[in-house]
């Protein structure tokens, strides 16, 4: 079943305290070389039937209305096909 994925990220100009906490933890664990971390959210929406343009338009509306807060977050919508094994 196809999934529509919505990635929500804090806008670049918005402080991301959670990302900062992760950034601070990495060197303590011995991981070097990471200079910034931004933490966001990923929504996986399983939809019934085909992912048509109309479905995608509706997902955009969901993302704008509920899944993200456009004041502080950006979002991206994309379709992820289910992993199907070829015979």
């Amino acid at each position, binding site marked *: 079943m196809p999934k529509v994925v919505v990635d929500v990220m804090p806008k670049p100009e918005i*402080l991301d305290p959670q990302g900062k906490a992760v950034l601070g933890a990495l060197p303590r664990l011995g991981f070097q070389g990471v200079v910034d971390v931004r933490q966001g959210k990923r929504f996986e929406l399983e939809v019934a039937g085909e992912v048509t343009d109309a479905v995608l338009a509706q997902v955009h509306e969901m993302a704008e209305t509920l*899944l993200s807060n456009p004041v502080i977050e950006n979002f991206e919508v994309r379709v992820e096909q289910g992993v199907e094994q070829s015979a």
Partner: protein
Amino acid sequence: MKIGVVTFPGSLDDVDAQRAVRIGGHEAVALWHGDHDLRGVDAVVLPGGFSYGDYLRCGAISRFSPVMSEVIEAAGRGMPVLGICNGFQILCESHLLPGALIRNDHRRFVCRDQRLRIENASTAWTSAYAEGDEITIVLKNGEGGFVADEATLDRLEGEGQVVARYLDGNPNGSLRDIAGITNARGNVVGLMPHPEHCVEELTGAGTDGIGFFTSLTADWLATVSA
């Protein structure tokens, strides 16, 4: 006057807010998040807490509860609405107020007596104060950092829509030390600290919060369109 206090699943301070409403001289009416009408109230308080467990974003789910459709519609007509802490977050998510509230910049929950300066004493909820009054009330939040873009901040300052500002240090990273704001009309006010906890000498940090519950006047309500 009849002031409704909404209880959402996860509200904490609804009963304190009801009590503050009564001490302020009004009748408190309990409203439930699933209500489809406002039971004839003259004004509404959205209390603090963790409505819907703060799932998704603070206030994001509450904003779409049935009672909020009524509150948003009534606020548009001029009905006074006060959002405290989580209530402030709900007002921002509802776009009744600009901006948003994000996690405290220092990443810790803060709980303390907080000094504030009242910057706008002409809103429906602050007329009992004088501009420049300094008050101390309880502050307790994990996601109280007020943010908005520069243009919005400039507009808030320019139009006198900053209602209260933090003094003695910024407790949560709020831009321009903003603790509370109002809409252009002055009927909707959002405030991060908790005036409802500071209405009696017996508990809390004095009684500086009572003004938020004694400000409503008949004159104000007369401006609400039917």
